[in-house]
């Protein structure tokens, strides 16, 4: 039986400091795979064998997991490392092994430029793209870019590279449109932020961009609330968009906004099927109360992309058998999931479309703004377009520099 199974390693962090975000993702990821196995009997009859490995969000344990799982079953073909640190550690390894890395929003942003790292995919967005869309949204709220001049925008960030990552985009826009950017670093883990928010309060900012992670998010929201900073003027970045950012903050979080690369809630056809084939069958990975949370939805769509890529590989190379690493890589390199396909998957409005080309390993990077009303996330905007010209230039510059450092010859895409 094993030979006809498609092996899927799943690096998860159900423990450790960031477990609250990790659990939802891992559950969604696993439940989607179960759904495919139960409802369809796998991909064209090829069942997927999922194996989890706990990384606790630590780089060394991530590497150990990668090494342990990569040759299990009939061989791993794709891995989602779920952490920027682990991604960096497994990039050289995965290149050597020919395994695809699917990094959703985290990892090397410049991997979005497909000519350098041919096996790493930033589907569906990056911090950079999402920040351009966020600023667009802000400008729109202010009534157009012309009104942005003289505005105060605070970027309150996890004092680490993660939090600093969108600064390039922010500074670029600040210069171009004449708003004042205030960079406020918050030292991780961020259990006490009073003095930062006192400063922010003094600035009386028009908007606050929050790039927190883990416990920093709820604390930031709570502290902001206690200082009277309007929550609907705070927009969380894609990893500050978490249910665990708002739930512990309680009523303080009402009105908090965040950008995400997927739709909110559980109101999609796929959830009915999950209920039917997974939950009611008692096959759910977790307690079942995380359905519709942001982390869970991310797990679902990450698994969705992976399985769609396999499906497309089978279509190309022969259905009804597990695909190889080369075949999987090929499939990712031209992965296309259009609106119709998304709808067929039952994820219309939940999953963004994907269109990978040789050069573009991100897609169009679209995101949407959601708002927490105290109970649920509500969609505020439709998919927002991103500033492709700006970010693609940035990807290219950064990737080419990396290629030079590493002695990689960028492949030709013509």
């Amino acid at each position, binding site marked *: 039986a094993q030979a006809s199974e498609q092996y899927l390693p799943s690096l998860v962090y159900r423990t450790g400091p960031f477990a609250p975000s990790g659990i939802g993702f891992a559950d969604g990821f696993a439940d989607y795979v179960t759904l495919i196995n139960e409802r369809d009997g796998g991909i064209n009859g090829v069942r997927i064998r999922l194996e989890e490995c706990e990384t606790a969000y630590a780089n060394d344990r991530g590497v150990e997991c990668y090494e342990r799982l990569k040759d299990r079953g009939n061989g791993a073909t794709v891995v989602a490392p779920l952490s920027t640190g682990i991604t960096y550690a497994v990039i050289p390894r995965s290149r050597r092994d020919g395994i695809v890395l699917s990094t959703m929003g985290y990892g090397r942003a410049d991997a979005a430029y497909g000519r350098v790292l041919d096996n790493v995919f930033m589907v569906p967005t990056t911090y950079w793209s999402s920040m351009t869309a966020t600023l667009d949204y802000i400008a729109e709220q202010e009534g157009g870019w012309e009104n942005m001049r003289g505005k105060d925008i605070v970027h309150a960030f996890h004092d680490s590279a993660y939090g600093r990552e969108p600064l390039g985009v922010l500074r670029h826009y600040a210069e171009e449109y004449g708003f004042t950017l205030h960079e406020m670093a918050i030292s991780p883990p961020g259990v006490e932020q*009073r*003095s930062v928010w006192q400063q922010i309060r003094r600035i009386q900012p028009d908007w606050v961009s929050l790039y927190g992670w883990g416990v920093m998010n709820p604390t930031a929201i709570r502290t902001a609330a206690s200082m009277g900073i309007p929550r609907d003027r705070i927009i969380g970045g894609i990893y500050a968009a978490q249910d665990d950012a708002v739930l512990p903050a309680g009523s303080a979080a009402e009105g908090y906004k965040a950008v995400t690369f997927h739709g909110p809630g559980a109101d999609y056809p796929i959830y009915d099927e999950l209920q039917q084939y997974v939950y009611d069958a008692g096959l759910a990975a977790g307690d079942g109360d995380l359905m519709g949370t942001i982390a869970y939805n991310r797990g679902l769509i990450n698994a969705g992309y992976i399985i769609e890529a396999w499906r497309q590989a089978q279509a190309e190379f022969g259905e009804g058998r597990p695909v190889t690493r080369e075949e999987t890589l090929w499939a990712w390199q031209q992965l296309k999931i259009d609106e119709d396909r998304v709808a067929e998957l039952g994820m219309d409005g939940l999953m963004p479309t994907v269109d990978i080309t040789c050069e573009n390993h991100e897609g169009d990077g679209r995101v949407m703004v959601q708002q927490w009303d105290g109970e649920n996330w509500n969609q505020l905007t439709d998919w927002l377009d991103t500033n492709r010209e700006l970010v693609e230039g940035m990807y290219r510059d950064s990737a080419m520099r990396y290629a030079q450092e590493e002695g990689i010859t960028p492949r030709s895409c013509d």
Partner: protein
Amino acid sequence: MMFFFEVLIGGLMSGIMYALVALGFVLIFKASGVFNFAQAAMVLFAAMFMAGMYGDWGVPYWLAIPITILLMIGLAWVIERFVLRHLVNQEPIIMFMATIGIFFAIIGFAEIIWGSRSRTLDVGLPDDMLFIGDMLFQQYDIVTALMVAVLVVLLMIFAQKTRMGRVLRAVADDHQAAQSVGIKLSTVWVVVWSVAGVVAVVAGIVWGGSLGVQPVMVDVAFKALPVLLLGGLTSIHGAIIAGLIIGAGEALAEVYLGPIIGGGIDNWFAYIIAMAFMVWRPEGLFGEKIIERI
């Protein structure tokens, strides 16, 4: 100027919250000469039980809190019975290491029961803004400060007005000699760990209320440690005073120094304050003098 005071007062308030965690360390250090790394885990453990019982089992807080306190006493007993008792008269570093073992064991245990998801813990402490003149205060802080004040007074009575204080210091000085005069180490330790457990419950309520209950709560310990150092490892009131100093120093530095050197500096700044101070006074502000004789 107004802003300065606001930051200052905010810092003092955070300092009180740190001191609350530091208190737990102080108690156990007083009673065994050991730096109890597991204190942070005890805070998490208590918070997880309170939040878990309320969230998963629907136990109301007025019941969940006393149950948790009983649980902490049970925990103290287990720790004494299975760990401390076997390490009598060992070097402090060995006992310190054992407390790290306890740290993992209790976190693992709590997670086996409650998992590592984040939970909310809201026992109903008031949480509104409060303006005094132009200055902004939080009710939560004021309530917390009051709770801590009461706790400290009680602890000081426990440690100073009763015979217990002397006995604790004797035990910390020399386990074996304490045994030789008939002090039951097991009783002393169970009592002290239980009291530290109760402090952990209070810290759990306060910190859990502001952070939510999640594994990262143990990191609060790293904010409490400089407070502990500065106050002196053995001093209850030292913890409070040092908490105020560190809290204020850290907040002011964050606001006035942070932007200059680029970044959130409060993680290490408190340590630097404590360290600089200790080069001058190696036992902290109110710590027991280190005896150097030959």
